[in-house]
């Protein structure tokens, strides 16, 4: 069952979309998302994927066209990055409020200005509150797996929410990795063809996107909030089913060497693999440091996180984005807020690392652990730190 391949992660993602039998794709090119859509366009052109590939004139139109495609009843996919996600911003909220199960890959990249095409999480963090399910992949295998699973999660009639798979731009999208692909028959069995709950059908006319007065708006948003919160159970069910199929089980908060750890690093995305090396080296040196990897960003896994930090004295959140003028990076703010109600809670310190593609090595995480410990000992001196800023 399954077969091993070595290929660029972007190409693997395009194969995942192909195996998921996406029917309609609308996309606009932006670095570093391009390889994904190029390969999908090529698959459609060669008849390897029975789909329509729509070359729209902007990301705003890409997301708008995706809504149209999804409203028509087609399994819909797109991919974007950075400025493209920012241009989509307005429509992202509408896609989720109207409950269209669009799947989107975001090749995470810094936001302008200054213009920077390299990786951080500034783009997706600016779109944190769009009401989509948001998942972070750590490596090529996860990118492939979560792309297939995303369709099943999004299209579940108990969920019906658009879903974003976050991949670190370049660090993941442009790297060649060994991965295990499922066979097409396995994917077909796991992910049957899409049966929409509502479509724009002349035989059963409906009005979609009616406006809401103050007496309706709150109820609609409450329904949206409940839908996203309740999607948690369905996400776990799909991940479990996929685990049984592939042998690869995923959890909302992944733990790495957390047993007995008093200090926990927490990060999202591909740099977790770098952090693992740091943890390995620290452990070898007798330092009981562990690592938490936040996979599910929306809906936020409050309970999983609270359980995962049990017994720790210090959680060091390594954000990949800034909330300028705010408390800290978005992840740190969220984590501290999630842990605040606990009677016994660890200290939470924020270190923002790797902005705009700044190189992060295992030594970075070791430095962060050392600095955080010192900070904890003398009491926090500032709200958070941007690591590695040159004077």
């Amino acid at each position, binding site marked *: 069952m399954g077969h091993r391949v070595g290929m660029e992660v972007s190409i693997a993602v395009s194969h995942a979309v192909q195996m998921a039998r996406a029917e309609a794709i609308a996309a606009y090119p932006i670095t570093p998302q391009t390889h994904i859509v190029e390969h999908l366009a090529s698959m459609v052109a060669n008849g390897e994927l029975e789909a329509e590939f729509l070359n729209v004139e902007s990301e705003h*139109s890409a997301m*708008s066209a995706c809504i149209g495609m*999804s409203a*028509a009843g087609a399994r819909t996919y797109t991919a974007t990055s950075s400025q493209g996600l920012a241009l989509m911003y307005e429509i992202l909220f509408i896609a989720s409020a109207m409950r269209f199960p669009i799947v989107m890959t975001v090749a995470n990249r810094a936001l302008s200005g200054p213009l920077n095409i390299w990786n951080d999480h500034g783009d997706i963090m600016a779109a944190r509150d769009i009401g989509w399910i948001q998942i972070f992949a750590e490596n090529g295998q996860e990118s492939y797996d979560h792309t297939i699973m995303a369709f099943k999660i999004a299209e579940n009639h108990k969920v019906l929410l658009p879903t974003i798979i976050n991949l670190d731009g370049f660090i993941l999208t442009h790297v060649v990795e060994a991965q295990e692909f499922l066979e097409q028959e396995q994917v077909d069995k796991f992910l049957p063809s899409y049966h929409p709950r509502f479509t724009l059908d*002349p035989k059963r006319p409906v*009005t979609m996107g009616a406006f809401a007065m103050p007496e309706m708006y709150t109820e609609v948003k409450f329904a949206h909030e409940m839908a996203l919160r309740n999607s948690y159970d369905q996400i776990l069910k799909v991940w479990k089913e996929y685990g049984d199929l592939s042998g690869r089980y995923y959890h909302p908060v992944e733990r790495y060497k957390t047993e007995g750890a008093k200090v926990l690093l927490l990060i999202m995305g591909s740099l977790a693999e770098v952090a693992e090396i740091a943890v390995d080296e620290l452990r070898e040196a007798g330092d009981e440091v562990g690592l938490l990897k936040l996979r599910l960003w929306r809906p936020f896994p409050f309970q999983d996180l609270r359980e995962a930090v049990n017994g720790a004295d210090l959680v060091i959140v390594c954000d990949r984005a800034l909330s300028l003028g705010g408390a800290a990076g978005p992840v740190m703010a969220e984590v501290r807020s999630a842990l605040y109600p606990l009677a016994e809670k660890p200290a939470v310190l924020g270190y923002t690392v790797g902005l705009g593609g700044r190189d992060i090595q295992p030594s970075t995480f070791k430095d962060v652990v050392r600095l955080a410990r010192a900070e904890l000992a003398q009491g926090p001196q500032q709200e958070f730190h941007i690591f590695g800023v040159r004077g």
Partner: protein
Amino acid sequence: MEKFGYAQSQKFDTYASRLMPRKEYFTSGHRACQGCGEALAVRWVTKAIGEDAVIAHATGCMEIVSSGMPQTAWMHPWIHVAFENTAAVASGLETGFRILARKGKLAKLPKVVAMGGDGGTTDIGLQALSGALERGHNFTYVCWDNEAYMNTGIQRSSSTPYGAMTTTSPPGKLSIGQTTQKKNMVAIAVAHGIPYVATACPSYLFDLFFKVKRAIETPGPAYIHVLSVCPTGWRSATELSVRLGRLAVETGVFPLFEVVNGKYRLTVEPPKLRPVNDYLKIQGRFRHLRDKERAFIQRHTLAAYQLLLEKCGASYPEFPVISETEEESE
């Protein structure tokens, strides 16, 4: 002869309601203003669209008056997403239906129609529209042109005519109101090389009806620009909406024509043009204009009309235009 009884175009169309489809697709009970030319246009355009169609609508007056949750005035399957992206939504719909039909999941391809106001078309939605026209989707785009952002309170758009008063182009000591000429959206649509482009006005129902029918039946993109009289924004009497539409045509301010595969043809051709002042003087939005500006609008209207006639290869109507004194003597 009543004051505005001189309507040349009555020689061209006879309104016979029993010859038109009785089925209503845009129901009563919507919240459009009294005398709304746009609501009238929507009612007849949806009749012309007929069965088996899906409509994407932009944010704007018509969306707001017709779709307050949990009610709707639309009998067609209808979707509203945002302001500037209706052509993109429609292109997604058309593409989605196409792939589903190809895969055998859909027996019949519905017709796809996009609708938006002049702001949503000529300003903020121009990029999405241009993209959709260029990609050649099989859809019809209908622009409801009431010549300003009426929904937000009569602000100027690029479709507001020269001299008009709006809340953001107010006349004052240093201004005559709107100082720019109305954007030629029809020419922009034609420049995309699409198979069908037309202007229309609900004051000429047959003309509107058959243009929409033709647009729907034309494979590929079609664009129809509908002048929609807005008593609220134009500061005109509500009972004059149909007449104002006729006057716009009879004065040459808004000629009715179609462009089929690049070939222009006037569909309503008044043998004589009335003075533009007939059209201007019954609208409060032009009330502040002096003779100088009115004369300028007259000259500009005639020049534009002549250019259009040249494109149509039509003979020039009798000039000078009918004088106001001549009209009064009739």
